[in-house]
């Protein structure tokens, strides 16, 4: 099961220019809102038409601008889970499922009974969508997609409208649903934590383009691009200049940093995650810190620091409450471990 997408579409403000391949895996499209994630899904589903390009599912051509092929959504066999689940409000749970099954009445009854059981919807068959909880609606939407025999699954921000408690429950349900589904899945989100928990590979999108596609571990260790670094939640980013093969100067922090990796000539930014500061005296990149501001968060302290005596942009440092309380706050030496520094070329 593999999906190949290479499309272009003008969207007014910017152009969508997407190229990627997905196999039997959960691939995330991670990007800020309005970067073209949902439009990409809509093009694959056949709801929107790209200007140029090719979309292929296995050997099945869904769209090819040169050969003038543009299959209607009905023939694409692409399951699309909408943010609001888009159940048919005028039909009961059983009717919602039966409606999309092709074939005789017996086929429909068989498919409905099977899906009701599979998704633990027993007892809800005759309820209408408004009578269901969010989790139940999600399961019905899933059952409906499976009943229509799709080859690919696309999830469009399935949790973004929910409060955090419900979201966690639905996320756990979704994870187990994906385990039973076992097909190529595209997951659109702007939430890095969610994406990290659910997906295998991550495609970072900015302004209609895919910046990088990496496995989640690779991406979070070395995001490579500014957008990737921001989206993976790195709070400290500064412009950088190369000094030598293992040293860069972080301009905004006014710090010279030794780096484990080889510094390339066109390095532009340097990043450092807020909870990776260390106290060890022997390490490199040590500076005496001046505290600019201390913010108490739910389970940690956020301390804004900069090299003492400088006027640099403060760095964000996060640490546990006990750890902060036990520190000698008058004389603070911090170090930035050289293997934790992120270098970005664009």
């Amino acid at each position, binding site marked *: 099961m593999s999906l190949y997408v290479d499309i272009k579409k003008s969207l007014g403000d910017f152009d969508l220019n997407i190229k990627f391949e997905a196999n039997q895996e959960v691939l995330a499209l991670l990007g800020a809102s309005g970067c073209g994630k949902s439009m990409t899904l*809509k093009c694959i*589903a*056949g*709801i929107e038409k790209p200007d140029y390009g090719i979309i292929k599912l296995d050997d099945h051509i869904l769209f090819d601008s040169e050969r003038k092929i543009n299959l*209607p*959504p*009905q*023939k*694409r*066999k*692409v*399951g*699309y889970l*909408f*943010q*609001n689940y*888009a*159940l*048919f*409000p*005028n039909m009961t749970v059983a009717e919602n499922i039966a*409606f*999309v099954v*092709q074939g005789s009445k017996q086929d429909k009854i068989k498919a409905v009974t099977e899906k009701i059981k599979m998704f633990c919807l027993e007892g809800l068959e005759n309820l*209408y969508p*408004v*009578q*269901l*909880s*969010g*989790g*139940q609606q999600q399961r019905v939407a899933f059952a*409906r*997609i499976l009943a*229509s025999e*799709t080859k690919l699954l696309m999830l469009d921000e399935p949790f973004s409208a929910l409060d955090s*408690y*419900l979201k966690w*429950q639905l996320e756990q349900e979704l994870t187990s649903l994906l385990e039973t589904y076992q097909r190529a899945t595209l997951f659109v989100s702007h939430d890095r934590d969610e994406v990290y928990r659910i997906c295998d590979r991550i495609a970072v999108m900015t302004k209609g383009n895919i910046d990088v596609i990496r496995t989640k571990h690779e991406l979070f260790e070395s995001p490579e691009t500014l957008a990737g670094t921001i989206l993976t939640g790195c709070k400290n980013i500064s412009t950088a200049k190369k000094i030598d093969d293992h040293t860069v100067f972080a301009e905004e922090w006014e710090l010279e940093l030794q780096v484990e990796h080889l510094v390339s000539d066109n390095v532009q930014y340097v990043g450092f995650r807020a909870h990776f500061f260390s106290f060890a005296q022997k390490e490199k990149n040590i500076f005496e810190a001046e505290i600019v501001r201390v913010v108490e968060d739910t389970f940690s302290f956020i301390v804004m620091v900069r090299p003492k005596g400088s006027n640099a942009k403060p760095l964000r440092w996060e640490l546990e409450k006990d750890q902060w309380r036990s520190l000698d706050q008058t004389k603070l030496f911090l170090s930035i471990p050289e293997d934790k520094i992120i270098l970005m070329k664009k």
Partner: protein
Amino acid sequence: MNLSPLIISLKTAFLATVITFFLGIFAAHFVVKMKRFQGIMDAILTLPMVLPPTVVGFFLLLFFGKNSLIGKFLLSFDITFVFSWEATVVAAVVVSLPLMYRTTRGAFEQIDKNIIYAARTLGVSETKIFWRVILPNSWYGVMAGVILSFTRALGEFGATIMVAGNIPGLTQTMSTAIYSAVQAGDNETAFQWVLIVVMISFAVIMLLNYWTKNQNEITQKLSKKRRGAISVVVR
């Protein structure tokens, strides 16, 4: 009292509403799907609502008159359209269609687009989507359109008098009967018809309000149940 204006009015309004119902739904469905010239088509369909009814009547005369193509064609079958009962129906259809079309179109456009997209990606054909998803989910708007069209057809005067005239027992509706009565100085008859028209229209509007309220209560009940379901999950 001769009841023929009442019967003619009701017959005309009922038949006109049935025709408008289908035409209006078809027009709304067609215009919503149009990619180009949507604005022009919408304007043409809405025009009879804003034009003076006499202008509509004038156009109908141009269209169906003895010297027009259609008029000549009908005449070859020995059918005279102008000043016939059928003309009252056509006049009522033309002036009430915009109301049906606009309310239905509004209802169609209010449906969550994702529901229709979902149906498409799930392999449901466009015809099935229309009959089983779009129409049932905009039923409330469609019914409101029907009621508005019916009252408009019932009250039609200007276009009717131009194209169908005011022939007692044949084309004289309640509206035109009031006009005749007032012209003849017969205020008593005029009052009687006025009372009947006001009563019917009032009843229809009350029916609409009652029905709207009922609809709201059903939706509220359902959403209350839903809140119950969520609180169970949270607990």
